[in-house]
């Protein structure tokens, strides 16, 4: 592999690793969102049961 191709490959690796981090952050956020909604849902159900 020549110099430029190696450089390109390295850029790609850096990009891939960095994107992986972003994906993780996004998923964490979505999970948090989901758990908050679920909390609310439980509240709703509880309220319904109480009524």
């Amino acid at each position, binding site marked *: 592999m020549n110099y*430029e*191709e190696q450089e*390109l490959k390295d850029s790609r690796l850096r990009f891939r690793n960095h994107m992986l981090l972003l994906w993780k952050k*996004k998923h964490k956020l*979505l999970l948090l*969102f989901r758990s908050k909604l*679920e909390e*609310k849902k439980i509240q709703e159900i509880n309220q319904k049961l109480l009524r």
Partner: protein
Amino acid sequence: MNLEEFKKLTPEKRRDLELAEKTPNEQVVFEQLKKEFGIEMQQELENFKNEDKKIDQITESIGLENIEAASNVKDSLGIHKELEKLNDEASKLIQKTKQDVGNIEVLNRKLQEKFNDIMVRSLELEKFRSQINGNKNYDNFYSESDTATLLQGLSEGAGIFQKIQDRNLNLDEFTDLGKSANPEDQLFFNQMNAEFEEKVPNSFNFSDVDPVIVLDKIKNESMLLKGSVIKELINKQKDSLPINIIFDFLDKNKSLINEDILKEISYLMDNQKDSVLAKSGLPLDQMIEIYRNDPDFKTIGFRTKKLIEEQSKPLLEYYAADILGTSSSKLSPTIPLNDIPGIVKIEYIDSLLHTSVISPEQTNQLVKTFDIKPEGLSPRSLNFLFRTSAFFDYLPNAEKLNSFKKVLDSGIYISPTEVDEELQDVLKDSFIEAAHKSFDNGDLRFLADTDIRKQVLTTLENKGDTKNIKNIQESFYVVDSPEKLPEPILKMLEKFEDQYGSKGKDLIALAVFTYGMEHPENFVKQMESIEQVLNKYNPDAIPEGAKVSMGVEYEVTLSLANIYADGSDFGYIKDIEMVSRSANIGKGNDAVHEIALKPNYNPYMMLAEMKLLQEAGFLDLNFERYPDAARGYHLSLVGDNGLEVNSNMFFLNNVLTMAQLTGITAGKEVSNTKHIHSKSFEHFSDSEQRGHRCEMKGMSTDSVEQFEKAVITSHHAGIAIQVTQKYFEAKLWPDAQEILKKIPSDKNEFERAMLSEMTKPFESDQDRDIAYEWMHFQASIMKGVEQHNESFMDSEFNGFVLDNEGNYIDTGSHIDVMRNKKLIESSNQEQVLQKTKIWTNELFESQSPIFVNALANINNIFLKPPQADDNSPVNAKAVLDTVRKENYGGIVDGKFQESIFDNQGEYRDGYYYVQGASEEMIIHKTQILLNRFNKNMEELLSIKSVERNQDQVNANFSN
């Protein structure tokens, strides 16, 4: 780069520059890759943004009745803003990456500009040349320094000759003084010689000197104005212009032309058969007269050998191309082949044979067409023809004999077995003489011929006065005449041959060189300790088809060879080549010498060879005797069932590095790593080899201990990988991760937990246990790395850590947390985390600089600054010195310089201690896990396990 700088480059460097220039095709490939990468990034961004839609999906799936509540959650989290931020970050990342990739192009363009510059300069140079040809203004065209060196050398030389002449001596008489019994004569002889050595350069570069300056300078010095100087000046010119200048000068200074000059120049002309003047026999001044009156003289008359060669080359190429069937130049021959001097033809054929791939038929045709006769050929060409064509087959016996003699007399060795039987006897002495000469030239092929070898070695032994040559001779006794060995050594030889086959014999031959045979009892003692370790290898205990053969390649550098040479008569290369022949050690093609140990199933055999080579002084893996020697080596593994360059091999390579067995990772970051290559097999056994020969190129060591551990670990891993691959496909990340996550910590649950992943059920308990060891080892390392990424800060700087199972582990009571905190107090914590992060997927991929740098950055925190420029051996020593027992135990006795042969087959059981770090620190943890793997494998591969299997089979039968 300007012309001056370009001129200073060595030819190799100039060629490198040219090669570095991209071919259009490469440019297309690169553009294509860039485009694909661009598309990939856009796609990735789109996917990433699309993920935001999951908010609606999630909202819908939860199905809150109060729709406002959902909005409230969104608002309180600021989720849209956060998502926007992430998307922004991704966009910026893509922009930045595109810029990076763009810069690659810029760099490429810059390189291009540099080459254009060189091209332009070359054109300028051409123009400059033609200008000076027209104006005869050749100032600055020649090298000033070469001219000055030549003049200085000539004048110093002349000064010395003057002193000799002052004593009324001619050169022959002076030479005789060296043998004179009179001490005064000898003193003078030595003084003059020493002065000559000191003041006169070994060789002059006549071709780049300015002839006018030289001639002008020497014209007033009779000692310098010599025919030989003029002749050299003329003969080395590549151009007709300077020859004209020289003749101009001689014409203007007719009074200077003496007998000597005339003789030399006539000789020069006589060499040119097609020179009209040379045949004319005219005196030189008349020749110059004709030359002056005939402007075309240089093309029809006097031509130097170089000019003839250059002018004949296209013609020769034309004729040769016709025979070789290559496309010929457009030039049609104006001169018949017969008119080209024979010597030029021979040299051309010779170079053709050197540089081109030519079939024997073509060679024959060339020889016929070019009318090459054996008596006209140089020994080198004869040798070439002998080896590449049927040329010799058609020679009459007398001519054949003469040709062989000519080749042998020149010191080129031909083995008696290559020569017709009836000639062998006549040439007997020539073979021996050629062997001696070729030995002096560093060609040791004669060692393959037993009879010649015996005679030459005996002569050499009488010549040399170090013990090396005596030991070499004795080590050949093992091969040639074992009856000459002392009784105890002979017995040892028989025993080793019996137990280990030809490899055992080779080892004894090496040991005879290393230890000599003066003290047989010492020899026996040494071999017994080696034998004890060799027997640790138990082939019967290895599952069928899972054997691994390993070979090592180690490059010997010049600095090593130079230090070695001090204690040897014939130098490193000759010594090791001779020993390699007697002990059947392979040889590679790189460096000063490349030791290439032949593959062997028994890893301890390889270690024994290395130990003996080290004790013999051929290398030192502790780098004490040869501190600047190469630290890297190549380790190749071949499996009977087949090892391949796949995630398992990558894991092995990476885990060896993590465990510091390929050198202490510390100091500066690296930008390159070496990979595992798949090579062709080197057959050494009857068993059928499958898969690849996996050559790990990135191996390196600071000590014998690391080297031996790395070899033994690779041996165990090679077996374990093959067994594992019998039942599990080698998977790539992230599939590998999924499987490894399911490995239970309880061995007994392994088979059940894995059933759905296996291609077939385990054939034996041993197979199951070995596969478990390997996969459990991988899983533990993977978990260790995950824990490291999560809690490196906690474990080393806060004193506690939660492991993957959520267990609280106290590290604070074992390490000095306060001290450690100081180590990073000035650093940005985020940065530290980023720099020390190990991407788990990289464990299963080809080793990357990011991976190695993360390890170095971890070590760098603990190892004391300042760190040297390179991976400092001082740091390495400090780390290697201390091996600690697991569970924060004490320091293990012993030294990293010691081999398992010094310790009855054991090595220090513990981890290289990076002071201040806890056992959770990944580099420590890896070593602990690796030691466990090795111990368990050793247990599984001991005879006991086989017996256990046998017991099981028996039990099954009796049931």
